């Protein structure tokens, strides 16, 4: 699942899932890079059933995006157990994203 939510919903998600792994993509339909990244995340989401994947429309919700430190789209943030562990602007490939996620999950398991 890779649903579009708004900023208030993301804040609630971060508070309610304080022990989980959450991938957030700030995206915009008018950008080719964003559309590509959205479809990559949509694919990856099915490989990681325990991870929550969400998309924020950084164009419609630009005030919230700016509050979160976003000034370029797309931007991916990953939260793990109430910690922001990844923040990257621009298009990222499927392999790179999977490597990042696997590294976070394996660190968590060895901790």
């Amino acid at each position: 699942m890779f649903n579009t939510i708004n900023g208030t919903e993301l804040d609630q998600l971060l508070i309610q899932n304080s022990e989980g792994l959450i991938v957030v993509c700030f995206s915009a339909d008018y950008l080719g890079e964003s559309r590509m990244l959205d479809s990559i995340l949509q694919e990856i989401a099915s490989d990681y059933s325990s991870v929550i994947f969400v998309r924020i429309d950084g164009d419609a919700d630009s005030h919230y995006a700016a509050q979160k430190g976003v000034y370029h789209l797309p931007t991916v943030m990953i939260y793990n157990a109430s910690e922001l562990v990844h923040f990257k602007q621009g298009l990222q490939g499927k392999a790179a994203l999977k490597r990042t996620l696997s590294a976070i999950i394996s660190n968590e398991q060895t901790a």
Partner: protein
Amino acid sequence: MNKDTVKHILMLEDMENDVELIKRAVKKNIPNAIFSVAMNKQEFLEKIEWQVPQIILSDYNIPGYNGLDAMFYVNKHFPHIPFIFVTGTLQDEEKVAQAVLSGADGYVLKDNLKSLSGVIEEVLAKSEVRYQAAEEALQRIRQTNLKIQKITSLLDNLEIPEKEKQILKGLIKELEEEVKPETVLA
């Protein structure tokens, strides 16, 4: 403190056990805290740019770095962000005085972490006005950057003469220089 708003806290701490103890101490009274953790200078300088934190908690001794240097960096580049030392090495009164006089907003000893969330709430309340004003300015700059990105993207798809397109791109470049987020507080 609004319990529904996420509070972003940046921690400079090289000891994993201490990171967990500090997180636990903070979350007792501030359950909506989200952390970024930097274990060295490079991570600190990188993560402070990710998402400007509402407060910084820093150890005093970091291998290859120093809490005071981190504080001077914050005071210079992000003067609106409050800075608290959370350390085991400030027993020396002279060091405490030096830290506070040099610009720290507070300090907590690691063997007294139960007082940490209270100190954070107190410091956040004191610094709210200066934080809000600067953060709102930063947010406007980030939103302007998002608008510039949108204009650039739409311009690429516009069918107008190349000469006019280049003039518009030149103007956009000038605007980008004026609204670089890292220069707005400098």
